[in-house]
């Protein structure tokens, strides 16, 4: 069944308010300023900067999802939130899986190259003997 609603009816299904956009803008401005500040002013030790930037980006994205894209505010059952969670799962599998496999591959090939160097050195030693 598919029914066309009137303008007034569909406007009730849309969830944005001036308050949500103002909050979203303020939230994004503050987090963006902190992110750029961390890189330009460099107040943190080097190894923590990447983690801080990652956390700030994820928090800002979550804020925009709620304030701008109105995630989790639709009528029950929440299909949009459900499919979003599933996409996040697949996304994490792709991202973490790829990073894992590629860094592992990188380490193994580096190890092999070192082994090859050692083997050639051993051959040289044998010839000298």
């Amino acid at each position, binding site marked *: 069944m598919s029914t066309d609603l009137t303008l007034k009816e569909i406007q009730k299904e849309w969830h944005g308010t001036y308050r949500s956009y103002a909050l979203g803008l303020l939230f994004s401005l503050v987090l963006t300023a902190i*992110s750029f500040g961390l890189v330009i002013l460099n107040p943190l030790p080097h190894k923590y900067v990447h983690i801080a930037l990652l956390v700030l980006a994820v928090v800002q994205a979550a804020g925009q999802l709620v304030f701008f894209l109105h995630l989790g505010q639709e009528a029950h059952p929440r299909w949009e939130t459900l499919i979003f969670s599933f996409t996040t799962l697949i996304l994490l599998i792709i991202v973490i899986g790829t990073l894992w496999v590629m860094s592992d591959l990188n380490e193994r090939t580096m190890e092999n190259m070192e082994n090859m160097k050692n083997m050639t050195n051993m051959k040289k030693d044998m010839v000298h003997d």
Partner: protein
Amino acid sequence: MSRPLTLHHQDTLEAHPDTRVPDPHQDVFSTTTFGFWVYLMTDCLLFATFFVTFAVFHDRTFGGPSPKDLFDLKTVFIETMVLLFSSVACGLALLSSLKLEKTKVIIWMAVAFLLGASFVAIELKEFTHLVHEGNSWERSAFLSSFFTLVGTHGLHVSVGLLWLMVMMFQVFWMGITALTFRRLSVFSMFWHFLDLIWIFIFTFVYLMGMV
């Protein structure tokens, strides 16, 4: 889920007292926005693969320049602000359309368009500068993945601008109707989504490259 699906309309009756359709998910507005949401989620996966390709290749510069030699944080900050305010302007257009203020809707859409167009202009200037210096996508694996990721986002924004222009004419000729409101709200989802992707681009590509 603990309760049967057939009963779910009961908890939405309160939220939508004058809705004729008992199930809030079967009208054209809901199915259209839901379908578009599914498209955005697949687009999310497309960007995820480009992001992870960039993550793998970001230090494979093949003797060429690294992010620190190429990027300018001032430009990136301006791009970020321009896209954020464009996203908010699009939201304000929708809020004006709730009050049926047609002129205000078109003004906010024009603001969103101009900001979006300046974003694309700044990005194109950056890209042509890189190519002229001999640092095109052919230079290294890092630059290939950089142009693929940032370029795909820029292409999305450009397509969005075309869409926004068509929508401005539609609102102008047809006024604010159920049809144009639906199209506007779908466009706003697209526009906010692109701003969301940009958060990860300025963080992973530019800021982390400059650390």
